[in-house]
């Protein structure tokens, strides 16, 4: 039997088509969002660390950091952070349901996926309503 030799230019071999050839299905988009929000939350922990260090440093520094958070850009980042957290949290619950072997009917999969999206937006809205209204 002939032994397969490694190709001289492995990078030039044709690649399988990837996500660009598929119509965006709702569960596929939720899967991608789960990973993207996970990555965003990963780097977002730097914000939490910064805020905690500011609280542990001095009132002046803490006020300066809080002042940055209420600028339009700061608000945008914090609202995005909230949504990423809620999206990833609900996506995690969806995965917990799937981990038990339930919810794999295609219509259930789509309902869970839409539920993740709608739920994360509602929770984000609710949290920010409470924040801007002055806590509860």
């Amino acid at each position, binding site marked *: 039997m002939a032994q397969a030799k490694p190709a001289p230019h492995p990078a030039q071999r044709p690649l399988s088509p990837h996500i660009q050839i598929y119509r965006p299905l709702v569960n596929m988009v939720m899967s991608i969002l789960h*990973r993207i929000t*996970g*990555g965003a*939350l*990963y780097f977002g*922990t*730097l914000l*939490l*660390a910064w805020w*905690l*260090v500011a*609280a*542990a440093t001095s*009132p002046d520094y*803490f*006020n300066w950091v*809080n002042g940055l958070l*209420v600028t339009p850009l700061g608000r945008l980042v914090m609202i995005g952070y909230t949504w990423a*957290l809620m999206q990833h*949290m609900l996506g*995690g*619950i969806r*995965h*917990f349901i799937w*981990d038990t072997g339930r919810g794999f009917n295609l219509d259930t999969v789509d309902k869970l996926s839409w539920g993740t999206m709608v739920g994360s937006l509602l929770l984000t809205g609710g*949290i920010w309503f*409470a*924040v801007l209204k*002055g*806590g*509860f």
Partner: protein
Amino acid sequence: MSARLHPTDSPTKARIRTPLSRARGLGSAKEGTGHFWWQRVTAAANLILVIYLTWQVVRLAGAPHDVVKAALKSLLVSVPLLLLILSGAYHMRLGMQSIIEDYVHGEICKLVLLMLNTFFAILVGLTCVLAVLKISFGA
């Protein structure tokens, strides 16, 4: 086990693994389903802690420094917060490990990124823990 030395088997028949190794079923990485399992354990912990601490943060939104510090001194906030920092740091390290292993195929590059991932999780986790403890112990 016999002390007899065995002839080398063909790859398809090789039985190099000991019976104990096969009974443990952990494979060559020696951790079996550990990655999957700890991702779930930390996810469950994060779920409970995030719900509770989101409520606490909303209550504190816009509060002045002394109020925030008083809240962080309270064990009802600091203990769950410390738990979330530890559980979250471990969870995000596992998650980023999966991302790196999925998308980075150069062996050296992958190993370096996996190490940086561990360093990042420990750095962020330890910084948060020390900031909370500093406030708890009276800063």
